[in-house]
């Protein structure tokens, strides 16, 4: 082996190069290309581009279906943010107060279990429970004296069905984040508060909550990403965005424009809009988080 070959074999770029190339090829270049695509019409057949200026953006912003998807996305966020933060937070505060070790671990294992499933698996399991004629939810309702519901085919209820599934499938993740943050709260801090006569609720709200606020901000961001980026697996299996687009969201709208109607330019414009929203929230987390979060 010549010295040049040996030097090449030891080059750090031989180590780092493939990962850098993959990141550029499958993330950074596509990101730039999506931006470019949003200004043109691209024909897959003729491999040909036509300049369209900002018409995809203006068209999208004027599209009533987009308005519906945007409004539904707001509903998803308004429902899932309090649920995905509040419930895991209450569970985490309670779980660190369970003194027995083994039951505590069993509770954590059970509560996190749905979070390892995928959205489509969670969705078919619930699709069956939502079944209007023989689904177990209507059986349960019947037992307590309520009329059966059509759930996913009821335009007013469908979006809440998707929200229920998304919550069930992902609250465990935030629970883990909060538990890890609470584990880092020094015991002497809560101990001091206890000696000062603070009850468990006062300790949780006044002492622990401010100390774990970075985890809260992170949980907000993950919830936004779930709604904007991941929930599509549940929407597609449960309702296909229906009935009458009443449970559609921005990503499902993108999927329809891009891959049902093959309007890639329009779909790219929607992708840019979604990415801008995610970026705004992430940026707000950094800025707001840094100023208002107690790290020590």
């Amino acid at each position: 082996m010549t010295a040049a070959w040996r030097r090449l074999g030891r080059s750090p770029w031989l180590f780092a190069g493939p990962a850098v190339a993959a990141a550029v090829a499958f993330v950074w270049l596509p990101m730039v290309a999506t931006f470019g695509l949003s200004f043109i019409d691209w024909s897959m057949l003729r491999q040909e581009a036509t300049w369209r200026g900002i018409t995809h953006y203006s068209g999208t912003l004027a599209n009533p279906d987009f308005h519906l998807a945007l409004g539904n996305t707001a509903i998803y966020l308004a429902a899932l943010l309090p649920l995905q933060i509040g419930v895991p937070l209450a569970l985490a505060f309670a779980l660190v107060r369970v003194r027995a070790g083994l039951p505590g671990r069993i509770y954590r294992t059970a509560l996190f279990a749905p979070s390892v499933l995928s959205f489509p698996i969670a969705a078919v399991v619930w699709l069956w429970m939502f079944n209007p004629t023989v689904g177990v939810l209507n059986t349960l309702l019947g037992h307590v004296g309520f009329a059966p519901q059509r759930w996913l085919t009821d335009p007013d209820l469908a979006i809440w069905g998707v929200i229920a599934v998304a919550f069930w499938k992902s609250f465990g993740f935030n629970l883990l984040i909060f538990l890890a943050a609470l584990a880092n709260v020094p015991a002497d801090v809560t101990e001091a508060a206890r000696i000062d006569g603070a009850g468990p609720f006062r300790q949780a709200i006044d002492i622990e909550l401010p100390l774990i606020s970075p985890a809260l901000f992170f949980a907000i961001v993950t919830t936004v990403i779930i709604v904007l980026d991941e929930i599509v697996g549940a929407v597609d299996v449960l309702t296909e965005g229906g009935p009458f687009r009443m449970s559609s969201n921005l990503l499902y709208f993108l999927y329809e424009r891009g891959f049902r109607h093959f309007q890639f330019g329009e779909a790219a414009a929607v992708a840019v809009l979604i990415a801008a929203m995610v970026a705004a929230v992430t940026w707000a987390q950094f800025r707001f988080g840094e100023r208002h979060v107690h790290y020590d």
Partner: protein
Amino acid sequence: MAGQIALHVAFVLACVATLFPLAWMLRTAFAAPGDIFHATLSLWPDDPTLGNFAKAFRLHPVAIWFVNSLVVAGAITLGKLAIALPASFAFGVMTFRGRDVAFGLVVGTMTVPYVITLLPTYVTVVGAGLYDTLAGVIIPTIGHCGFVVFFLRQAFKALPRELFEAARIDGAGPWRQLLTIALPNIWGAVAAMAVLSFLGAWNLYLWPHLILDATEHKTLSIGLKLFATTGEQGGEWGPLMATALLAAVPVVALYLLAQRQIVSAFVTSGVR
């Protein structure tokens, strides 16, 4: 003490509510057709049967979907580790010009929402003739390895420098240092990333849904959707739940076996 009892009661109720949908899937997967179509709240099927699995395999190529899922998840996991291990070693242990820029390029991908890469990657995959192939699903997904690199670099950085100094004096090149010295010391971190990548890849939905077309090319996740929306509507709930169970078993088993690794990886992704 009364407080502790109240806590346990509340948690048992919360766990029952959380696990109920899974228990109901399990019940339906093993229930006979007649048992499925009458309103019941009993969690134990009247006459447990494996018939739903047999029927699922007759209705759809479920075994092929399962193998496809294994191939996709396995290849993505191996691929991510194959490029992330040397890269994170370089970023964590070696010093070279452009390192920080390169590291930023790789780890910065974590902040890019996945939707914005979707359309051009689709056009590229179709153009490369990889539409409706597992390779078309696998190759672009391997590129999303920013978190794996981030996590493994932390593990490499935590190793004492003297370890590598001694090896260097013995004449070990960087590849030998990586494979024989660094790697055996970070197996825990590698296992955590392997499990996390496998779970993520097993659960992929939108991307394989866009790329895979022929029924026998699908993975379980998207096969489930096909199963749920074709055939006799309102009919095959038993076989569908049997298929959902097959899709859930590997990830739940992996979760129970590697709970500590999964939790540590998830939590690190949370406090990054």
